[in-house]
């Protein structure tokens, strides 16, 4: 008979075999045996957070920037319920998270015991799968399976709930190597059908108004997929646009890149999506922020959808050709076949798409991201632009909260590498950015990590500054402080007759003093003239920084697709506003 271990030991043996180096968590009654065992496993570092939501977002930031699953420990009851937002966030953005939760002892389950909740019930709709382990001999298999489910196919969060008595009980440990090729995703690992490839290439050759529309799937597929996207775009000469979560897969400053698309995307990207005759969706999911009204979405185009998740196909938009595959492996076959059969395509096809490019340049001339700058107040867009200019030569990691600042970051910060933007896309979780930055910094020591934040969002998880201070993580919280919940205020201005109901935050803290209270550094900028020097000061500090950037309070985020409108009827901002808002504009948004 082999050696036997306690449940808590088995947890760590699993983590070691999964090569886990960092765990984010918070102790409590029902996970104490696991925390007791921590000291015996030096290769695993525990990062104590200040709230379980923070553990979840930190694990997400860690996973997104390192391409390894994020692992978290939480206790039963409130520990689990606090983690639910982060799990849902990870589920929406397809981030691999393994959450290990304590549970009350088996004999007390169902008795409304202290800190008991129906963990598997509560987390069922926000995880790919979850398990309640009642027998210590099932524990090892379950945890290994959990890693497998989280990281294969379309990634996502999983949860393993372990009652306290199971953590104490002795059982056997065996590690069977993971079969990571098997996808738990409804048949997502089917072999690529060469007929589909031929059909796609044929469509590409026939098209005179093509566009690539790429998403987070490219990032999730790995750096190789990003390389292949770049190769494909340069092979074909087609324009490319990206969703929020896909930014960085293609260089943001390349002339073939039209910028982000969608509700706050660029004029050229959205018009190109509307007028194209061939749309090739690579790893995106036709989200409602992208499509607007589905009936009027890109009416003249043939649509191709490449996705690893079969249930993404046809969920929102009907497509003409669907290929279920990992983006990376599809792109590999596609570029190989394409190169073989279509030598010199770029030159021979130039004529065909020249009118399309002319049209795109016309749209570009609108310069939809322009804003009217000021000498007296800092415009938030200007602040992001300066931040970009002053950090672009470093390998900078950006996280964001949710709202106007998030859109400005996406519009004005040009991402050139994958895994450099960590933002809550699907769920839109305010308070995501600060704890995510903690996770990013843990995974990337020595790198510059900046959370582009709003003052309202960042206050939701501000307590994690304490985590940053404890673990000496020099993250930079760059707050575009307009004293409003900016996106709420913008919608109220445009949709609700400027009734700014509860969107102004009175009694904001002094962020500089707040930083100091956490043992961090506080910097404040109030004038455009001092912005650059203060940003440089922030970058040079080797400590966590809260940067309070006081910006124009009334600035709106443009361009914008008004609701119920197709992509070719965007609002372009203050210039438009003056002309239209009086009558039509207000009702359009």
């Amino acid at each position, binding site marked *: 008979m082999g050696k036997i271990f306690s449940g808590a030991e088995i947890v760590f043996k699993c983590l070691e075999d999964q090569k886990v180096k960092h765990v984010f968590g918070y102790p409590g009654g029902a996970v104490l045996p696991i925390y007791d065992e921590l000291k015996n496993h030096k290769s695993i570092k525990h990062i104590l957070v200040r709230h379980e939501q923070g553990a979840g977002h930190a694990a997400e930031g860690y996973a997104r920037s390192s391409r390894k699953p994020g692992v978290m420990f939480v206790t039963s009851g409130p520990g689990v319920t606090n983690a639910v937002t982060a799990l849902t966030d990870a589920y929406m953005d397809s981030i691999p998270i393994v959450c290990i939760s304590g549970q009350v002892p088996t004999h007390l389950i169902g008795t409304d015991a202290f800190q008991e909740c129906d963990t*598997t*019930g509560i987390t*069922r*709709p926000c995880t*790919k*799968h979850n398990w*309640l382990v009642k027998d210590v001999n099932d524990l090892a298999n379950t945890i290994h399976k959990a890693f497998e*489910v989280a990281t294969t196919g379309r990634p996502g969060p999983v949860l393993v709930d372990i009652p306290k008595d199971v953590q104490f009980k002795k059982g056997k440990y065996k590690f069977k190597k993971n079969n990571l090729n098997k996808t*738990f*995703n*409804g*048949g997502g690992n089917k072999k690529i059908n060469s007929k589909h490839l031929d059909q796609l290439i044929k469509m590409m050759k026939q098209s005179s108004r093509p566009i690539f529309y790429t998403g987070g799937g490219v990032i999730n597929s790995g750096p190789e997929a990003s390389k292949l996207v770049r190769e494909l775009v340069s092979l074909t000469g087609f324009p490319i646009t990206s969703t929020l979560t896909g930014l960085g897969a293609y260089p943001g400053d390349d002339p073939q890149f039209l910028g982000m698309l969608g*509700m706050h995307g660029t004029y050229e990207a959205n018009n190109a999506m509307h007028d194209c005759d061939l749309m090739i969706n690579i790893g995106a999911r036709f989200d*409602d922020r992208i*499509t*607007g*009204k*589905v*009936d009027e979405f890109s009416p003249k185009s043939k649509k191709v959808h490449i996705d690893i*998740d*079969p*249930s993404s*196909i*046809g*969920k929102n938009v*009907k497509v003409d050709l669907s290929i279920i595959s990992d983006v990376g492996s599809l792109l590999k076959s596609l570029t190989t076949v394409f190169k073989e059969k279509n030598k010199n395509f770029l030159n021979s096809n130039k004529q065909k798409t020249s009118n399309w490019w002319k049209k795109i340049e016309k749209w570009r001339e609108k310069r939809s991201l322009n804003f009217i700058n000021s000498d007296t107040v800092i415009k938030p867009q200007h602040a992001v632009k300066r931040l970009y200019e002053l950090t672009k030569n470093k390998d900078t990691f950006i996280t964001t909260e949710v709202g106007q600042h998030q859109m400005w970051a996406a519009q004005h910060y040009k991402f050139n590498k994958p895994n450099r933007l960590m933002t809550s896309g699907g769920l839109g979780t305010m308070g995501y950015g600060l704890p995510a930055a903690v996770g990013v910094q843990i995974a990337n020591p020595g790198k510059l990590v900046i959370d582009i934040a709003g003052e309202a969002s960042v206050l939701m998880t501000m307590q994690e500054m304490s985590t940053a201070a404890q673990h000496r993580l020099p993250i930079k919280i760059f707050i575009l402080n307009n004293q409003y919940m900016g996106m709420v205020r913008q*919608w109220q201005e445009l*949709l*609700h007759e400027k009734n700014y109901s509860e969107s102004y935050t009175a009694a904001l803290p002094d962020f500089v003093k707040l930083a100091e209270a956490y043992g961090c550094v506080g910097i404040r900028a109030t004038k455009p003239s001092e912005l650059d020097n203060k940003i440089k000061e922030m970058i040079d500090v080797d400590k966590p920084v809260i940067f309070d950037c006081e910006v124009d309070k009334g600035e709106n985020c443009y361009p914008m697709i*008004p*609701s*119920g409108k197709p992509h070719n009827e965007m609002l372009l901002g203050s210039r438009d506003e003056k002309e239209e808002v009086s009558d039509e504009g207000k*009702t*359009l*948004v």
Partner: protein
Amino acid sequence: MKKSKSAYSEPGKFGRSEHHIIVVWVDNETGVLARVVGLFSGRGYNIESLTVAEVDKKKHISRITIVTSGTPEVIEQIKLQLTKLIPVHKVADFKRNDPKILFKELALFKVVSSKKNQEKAKKICKKYNSIIVDKSKKSFVIQVTALRREIDKLIEVLGPLGLASTSRTGAVAMTRGSRVFK
């Protein structure tokens, strides 16, 4: 244009809704039914009836039969989403009016009435494979297997004849002939 105060888009056109029978083979483990049913309620799909029982004792496989309705797109999503669940082995989908498929529902009726009405009631049930499973002076319990609409009809007809209690299952389905759904 219609005024919209929403930052979400307006609903598009709805397709025509069809009745479908979805059959799901799952591992018979704790919570599996909650996962399946939770998927339906969470995504706003409809369940008309639901039948579930273990069909393979050795492999612990249960067969869930769900009668649902939705547009072809919704039905397709139901199948794809179900397939993604970890304990789900396979998913089959049949149109309710598919002639190649057998559907049956079972119902128990308790009739409490006079001898004369009791006889009438028994006679009506006869063509639906009826079996009398319990008898007393004043009452009887009868079991029928039939289609959903036939049972609906029976309930209507038996009402005035002293129908006191009805218990019915959801539909179960199977392909005709030698073909087996793989």
